[in-house]
């Protein structure tokens, strides 16, 4: 036993160990605080969680589930990117290839079902937060961050919808993006955009309105596929990741998970 203790001491006193765990074993309150202060990940998490905050019947664990599904989507999505090319020549066949030929054909299904589950989880999380009144001060800022995260979740679903490049995808995005035509002022069928004129010439038309900027053309095409791919894989996850960091940090700063009323 003595030799085990000696090895343990050796490891804990080594430079490598000390460089990673700077505070040492957090066996006092002071060291516990320092351990949290010195760690990015622990910083995002509340220092203390109330007993009620761990009750499934109160939280439904839907915020945690949403985050877990986001991680699942990140990992499976990253793996799919090794096989998928966002061009009209290859997109559909690459999806078929992912299902039929690539190892673990379930990977694409996990990504797809994970996406459905994430939308449901985010909605349920919002529902729980609403029903428990957890949007009230001091948590109103975090409620707003959450609303933006909900929109980003839906946008991730929307942009991912196009990538299989089958008939369902193309027409669903045709229909969905047509709503941008009704943007006030910026869509060619939206209210007030008819007022933006140079003499008799309307300046907002199908070739330069909000929908055009979104899909990169007058109709869904190669430009749309590439654009949605970049939004889906890079732009929206980056913004969502940043907002999630704020979201979790604010949960801690606003007093942890709210208690039952």
């Amino acid at each position, binding site marked *: 036993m003595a030799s085990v203790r000696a090895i343990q001491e050796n490891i804990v006193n080594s430079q490598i160990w000390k460089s990673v765990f700077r505070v040492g074993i957090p066996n006092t309150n002071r060291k516990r605080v320092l351990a949290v202060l010195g760690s990015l990940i622990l910083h995002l998490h509340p220092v203390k969680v109330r007993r009620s905050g761990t009750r499934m019947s109160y939280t439904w664990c839907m915020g945690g589930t949403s985050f877990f599904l986001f991680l699942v989507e990140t990992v499976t999505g990253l793996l799919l990117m090794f096989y998928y090319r966002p061009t009209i020549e290859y997109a559909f066949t690459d999806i078929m290839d992912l299902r039929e030929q690539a190892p673990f054909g379930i990977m694409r299904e996990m990504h797809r079902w994970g996406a459905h589950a994430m939308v449901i989880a985010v909605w349920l999380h919002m529902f729980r937060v609403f029903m428990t009144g957890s949007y009230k001060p001091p948590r109103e800022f975090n409620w707003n961050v959450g609303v933006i995260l909900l929109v980003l979740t839906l946008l991730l679903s929307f942009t991912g919808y196009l990538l299989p490049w089958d008939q369902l995808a193309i*027409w669903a995005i*045709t229909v969905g993006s047509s709503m941008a*035509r009704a943007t006030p002022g910026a869509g060619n069928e939206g209210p007030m955009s008819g007022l933006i004129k140079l003499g008799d010439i309307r300046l907002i038309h199908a070739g*330069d309105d909000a929908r055009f900027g979104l899909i990169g*053309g007058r*109709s869904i095409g190669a*430009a749309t596929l590439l654009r949605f791919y970049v939004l889906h894989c890079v732009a929206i996850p980056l913004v969502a990741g940043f907002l999630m960091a704020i979201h979790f940090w604010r949960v801690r700063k606003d007093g942890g998970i709210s208690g039952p009323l």
Partner: protein
Amino acid sequence: MSEEITPYQVVPKTPLAGSAAADIREQGEMTRRSFPFVITAAWLALTAALGGLASVLGRFMFPNVLFEPVQKFKAGFVADYAVGEVDERWKDKFGIWLVRTEEVMYALISVCTHLGCTPNWLPTQNKFKCPCHGSGYYKSGVNFEGPTPRPLERAKISIDIADGQIVVDKSKQFHQERGEWTDPESFIKI
């Protein structure tokens, strides 16, 4: 702010010559009086830079060249089209139905005015029917069923004087609900 106002010129000469404050001024250091100008200029510069960046990012998303079928094309001669028929030969390539009646010929744009899908021409039922949400249109393009709020659009159509062929130009559309189908450019008389 005009150009010639720099933080250092607006500082008045003070009777404190020889003092520490005067020394600092001569060396071009910040003073309480110059600070508001500097901070205003800095905020203006930052706002201008961010505004410029935002407009560049916005403009970048609007491509200059589109890899889409051309908007204007020649569609052969009037005699190539049967009277009373909806002709589908240009639908796949250009998204246009050419319809010839006893008196006129017009070009319908094959984009549903509800949410942009492509309707089908059903000859047996003598109507256009959109597969997405079921909007229906008469042969004229006027809507009669489903969720669509307005008729199909017609494209500019004319006869090329040089060779007598039909020319369809999708870049100019005619809306029935705006009363534009009476425009002589929206049909050709036969």
